[in-house]
């Protein structure tokens, strides 16, 4: 097994220098997620500005994959229209649930394509999705009804 295939440089960079870290006020929606198999925790807040994502802030503790993933999420969705963010969420979930068989679209997922290798390890898919699960739930709490639809994350 090739460790570098899973832990791409991009992932390690985001892990060491996570973006969006620290909880910020004000916010419109918040979610707390745990991964019951390993005890990782994540609290994430979303601030909306009309139909744009104004800010995503988060705190918690977890493995490199879960930490890097929420950092990448921050880059992908902040300052973007909610619809774009939801499309990215769907694309990321599809990639992660694809067992390594989904070809990621770099235009949509940018740094998120680095997680393609993680998708081959079922035990780590949950880690990669923890932040996205929190993001989706926080959007719902912020009143974005559309966030209820789309990819089922489990």
């Amino acid at each position, binding site marked *: *097994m*090739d*460790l570098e295939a*899973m*832990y791409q440089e991009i992932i*390690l960079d985001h892990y060491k220098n996570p973006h969006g870290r620290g909880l910020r006020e004000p916010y419109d929606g918040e979610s707390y997620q745990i991964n019951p*198999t*390993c*005890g*990782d*925790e994540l609290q994430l807040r979303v601030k909306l500005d009309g139909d744009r994502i104004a800010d995503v802030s988060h705190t918690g*503790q*977890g*493995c*490199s*994959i879960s930490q890097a993933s929420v950092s990448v999420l921050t880059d992908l969705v902040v300052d973007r229209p909610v619809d774009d963010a939801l499309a990215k969420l769907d694309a990321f979930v599809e990639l992660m649930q694809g067992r390594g068989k989904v070809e990621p679209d770099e235009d949509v997922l940018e740094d998120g394509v680095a997680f393609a290798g993680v998708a081959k*390890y079922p035990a*780590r898919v949950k*880690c990669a999705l923890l932040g996205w699960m929190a993001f989706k739930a926080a959007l719902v709490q912020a009143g974005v009804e559309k966030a209820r639809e789309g990819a089922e994350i489990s």
Partner: protein
Amino acid sequence: MTATPLEAAPLDVAAVRADFPILTRTVRDGKPLVYFDSGATSQRPRQVLAAERAYVETSNSAVHRGAHQLAEEATDAFEDARERVAKFVGVDAGEVVFTKNATEGINLVAYSMSNAATAGEEAKRFRVGEGDEIVITEMEHHANLVPWQQLCRRTGATLRWFGVTDDGRLDLSDIDSLINERTKVVAFTHQSNVLGTVNDPAPLVERARKVGALTVLDACQSVPHAPVNLRELGVDFAVFSGHKMLGPSGVGVLYGRRELLEAMPPFLTGGSMIELVTMERSTFAPPPQKFEAGVPMTSQAIGLGAAIDYLRAVGMSAVAEHEKQLTEAALTALGEIDGVRIIGPTTTESRGGAVSFVVDGVHPHDVGQVMDSMGVAVRVGHHCAWPLHRRLGIPASVRASFYLYNSVHEIDALVAGVREAQRFFGVV
């Protein structure tokens, strides 16, 4: 292997390993498998599979039902397995209830106690309600925690617990106030699946007896790894799982002192556990059948009997001694690595072969992933002991757990894995 217990003979690891085909496989692109996750589930020797297979191919039928030859043979084989289990832990066959696993055994007791509320006078001592207390410990596996929490929920009883010291031992300093006249149950683990700590049941059993509380021993991590005589320990109930002691999954054991099993109301009801049934009411079979509703797991129980034969042939003292050497080697080697913190006792004194640790700067999940890439199977996470991890101030840990088929040189792979994780994540 002979069938006589050769307690004095040291364990021949090569001979043992030859009985476990899985240990010869490779993982992750050709790496030899180093299996350090026996605390979660153990591997099974050929002999166990052979016993299951022989039963299925020659005698398979429903036990305790029917009078044909196969039914007779199946019943004999099943009851023979019960005898072996009983003998292995020093109790009578009538005190051994087969369950799905240890978790079910604990739930069986907890639900039977709920059912005592509506059962007759003979079940009085199992009743719990408001004002009563159930005492557990902070080092319990969720299996010996959640069922008691739930029993308290259902009945209004209060859950209390012994704390854990910083070095991973039970803090018994408040035993006399924690276990008091209101205490109905004292449930505790014999050996922690995370810390490796071996708890001496004696003071707990003695105090529980004094106040008339029932004791429930979680022997999941002790019975597979050392000689254990439940009668001598004096506990009222004990549980363990077949799959952690070279046996199949799907079979576990609940031991209960005979007079308790006789008085305790049943949990699951239906076929096989009855004495007389009319449309209005039923009476129940004597234990252990009273607690074994429905057609039981049969080939699994027979497999467990074979696993016990295997362990007896090796000798439980030899198993314990071998694991002590592995534990000693692991504690020493891990202790020499900067940035590694062992969770739990750092000597082999009253300690079994589960060694958990954290690596500064590298999340346990990531340590485990690096080890997996090198063929080393360890457990990462909270190992179903979340409150214990919270108590120790860590979200998760890495656990290497040993068994009779591990060799001391495999510890080198553990150490190499930790060092590689440190290198890969740039913390050294």
